Every structure is written in C-alpha cells, then in structure tokens.
C-alpha cells in the first residue's frame, strides 16, 4: 500500500461515520451513502493537498461542496424543465430537508431555516459537526477572524429569532401603573 493509500485509509476509517452523518443531515439517510462515497472519491483525488492536522475539517469542506452540487443539480433539473416548458416554478426552492425528531426542536429548526444560507452553514458546522473555530475556517476556506465574526453574528441572529418578544403591557395594566 502506497503512503497516499495509507493516508486515505486512515482518513476513511477515522472519519467515514462523521462524514456520513454530515451528509445524512443534509440529504437524508437514504442518499448519504452515495454522497459520502463522492466525498471520499474527491478526497482521494486531492489526497496530496490534505493537511492531516485539519483532515476532518477539510473533509467537511469537501462534503459541503458535494452536497451543494447535488442540491443544485436536483433543483436545476426541475427549473430547466420549467423554463423550457414556459412555466414558472410552482413554489420557491425549499431549504434542505431536515428531519425533526423531537417536537420541541421544531421552532429551533424553523429558526435555522429562516436564517440566510451562510449563517445556517456556520451554525451547523459548529453545533452539529462540532468543529472548532480553526476547523470551521478550514472547512469554509475563510480566515479565523472572519469565522469568529460570522459565527457570533449567526448565533446572535438565531437567538433573536428564538427569543420571544417581551410581553406588552395591556391598557388596563398601564392604567394601573399610572394610577
């Protein structure tokens, strides 16, 4: 086995399950096998570029692009058909399918889906993939300071969507207070 093959085998054995879960969260369990296979195919082709100290983050970066391509391809096929048929899309493009396992999580998932794509992605990498700041920087190919700023901003926006508006005083209550 060559050193590249040994490196690949190590990456594969150590991170396949995490990459598979990353894909399952974004495309569903039934398609995750295929997408994970594509991720490791891409990883093998670029094995010489891998910084092993950030291998996990690098793989998530590859996985992110593969998943994006898959979404684009699927939604574009539909839009091309509609364009040629001369009809407008019947509904806006959906965010990715997310299986909500617990009823109490619905509002946080809904809030996540209300954020813009870049906020969603950095929050998922931090919360679900449990990447550190430097790892997120590698996965997104941005600087560490940009990562920290974006993550903080995204957390703040998520919180703003989840925190209920403070209750407004009723007229009666206001009247009592004035009295």
């Amino acid at each position: 086995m060559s050193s590249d093959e040994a490196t690949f085998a190590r990456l594969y054995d150590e991170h396949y399950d995490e990459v598979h879960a990353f894909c399952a969260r974004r495309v569903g369990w039934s398609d995750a096998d295929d997408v994970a296979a594509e991720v490791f195919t891409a990883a093998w082709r670029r094995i010489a570029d891998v910084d092993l100290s950030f291998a996990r983050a690098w793989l998530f970066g590859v996985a992110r692009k593969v998943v994006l391509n898959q979404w684009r391809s699927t939604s574009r096929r539909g839009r091309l058909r509609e364009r040629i048929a001369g009809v407008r899309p019947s509904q806006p493009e959906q965010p990715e399918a997310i299986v909500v396992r617990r009823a109490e999580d619905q509002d946080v998932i809904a809030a996540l889906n209300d954020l813009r794509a870049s906020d969603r992605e950095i929050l998922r990498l931090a919360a679900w993939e449990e990447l550190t700041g430097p790892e997120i920087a590698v996965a997104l190919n941005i600087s560490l300071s940009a990562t920290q700023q974006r993550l903080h901003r995204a957390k703040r926006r998520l919180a703003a969507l989840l925190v209920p508006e403070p209750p407004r005083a009723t007229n009666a209550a206001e009247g009592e207070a004035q009295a």
Partner: protein
Amino acid sequence: MNDIDRAFDRLREANPEPTRVVEDKPTARQMLATVQRPRTPLQRPEPDRSRPRRRALAVAAAAFAAVVFATVPVLMFVDRSGDEVPAGEGPSTTALSTTVPQTTVPVSSIDPETEGLVDTFVSTYNSGDLEAFMALLHPDFRRETWLDEDLITHPSDTLSTLYEVDAALHTEITLVCVPGAADAVCMPTRFDDLHRVLEIPPSEVTTWFLTFEDGLLRTWTERRPNVGLIPYDAEAVTPFANWVVANRPEMLGGSRWEFVFFSGGSDTWIPRQGIAAEVAELVSEWADSLGVTLEE
C-alpha cells in the same frame, strides 16, 4: 448563560442525525478500488457511419422555439431512464418526527451516448487543459449566440482566449440537460474564483443547445439575455471589475478588457484578450483585500 448561548445549545440538542457507526460500509480498500478505475484517454472516436447524421442546428429562432416547446414537455415526462424519483420518497422519520417538505424531481435523461459526450465535455472543460478542450471540437465546430434575430458565429480563437481566462479562474461548469431540439438542451452554471471570493452561488441566466457529430462537439449555441459572448456572471464579475477600476485602472488599457452591458441594465469591464495570468493575479489581490484565501 445568556440568550445567545441558550439558543446555540438548543440548536446543538436539535441535531437531527447524530453521528453513529455506519454498518455495512465499504472498506477503504473497496472504496479505493472503485475510484482507481483507469481513466479512458481522450481520443477522437471513429465515425459511426451507420448512424444517420444529425440535422444541423442552424435553424431560425422561431423554429428552434417551436420545436423545443412542442417536443420537450412530452419527452420530459416519459420515463426513459427508469430512475424517476417517486414522489414523497425521503428520509425515514419516526412517529414523533415531522419533515420539512423535500422537493422531488422526476428525472428524464438524454440518451446514454450523448450523456457520455456531455460528461466528457464538462470534465475536459473543468480540467483547464486548453489543448484537450480544443481537441473535443469538431473540425466544423461553431460557437453561436443570438443577437436579436441573427445567429452570430464566433471564431474559435475567441473561444480559446476566453477559455484561457476561465482556466486561470479555476472555472468549473456544471450542466443539467434534457432532450430537446438539440442533442442536449442544458442549463449551465459556471463557478469560478470570482464566486469563491464573494461566496455567492452561480447564476443560471442562459441555456445551451449542444449538438455532437462523430463523437465531437459540433455546435454550441447559446441563449442568454446578453449580447455577444460574455461568459461571466454579472453578479460575480462586477464587484471584481469595480475593484480593478478603483485599484488597478492601468490594467484596463490596451483593449485587453472590454466594457460590456448586461441585460439588467448594469455595465462593467470584463477581461478579454491574452491576460489570463494577470487576471489570476488580480483576483488573488482582490481576494486578499477582502480577507479571503483562495485555494491553490
């Protein structure tokens, strides 16, 4: 704990698919065996004399549209590939779960032979290898765009010049194709370093009609709301060009950049001739100024 931390903790707990051991996954060796298949070298195939020659694409715009609109909807909904996705198919859910609706798209495919030619076209384009790309073109190849009602043919040296800039920008095209008036009617996107710097998705403003002959690309006809042969996304090239104008105005001299107008009313400069290496350097400088690191 403040509201921000609490919200993030709730998101962490809402992980829809916690990592678990995947049973029956292929071993690393099995995976390697599937990706190490020898690659078929690019070569000109022998002409297939038994196949009737495909009709040329040089028809009037009205005929084009009529044929497309008349035939494609019929073809599209015929399941020729057998890989149509059943409506409602998606991740399994538990009794407690609900699922955000997932768009399912019935798939119809171009024929396998054309699909193989399109795949080769895309992978060669994305390789950045000018010689390999030009070898895909039929001796009578035509690159065409529509200008009002006129079909304009662009010389192949224009194509090679544009391709050099595309290669310098690490351009990746993707095509989604359906059967139609041409061998393949495709929705292309281009994703290049300009998109990477701006972190924006590619736009889909054009449609390509591709025909193949003797295994080579015979015609590549473009429908887009631009005049002429402008491969760039306005949303991606405009901020870059604005930066060049502000910071490297001397680069715009000598007719090497072209001032163009996009259909939405915007206008900008685009790189034009023999400046692929300089464009790559400028993009790198621009990325640095925005704190973005581009992969080598």
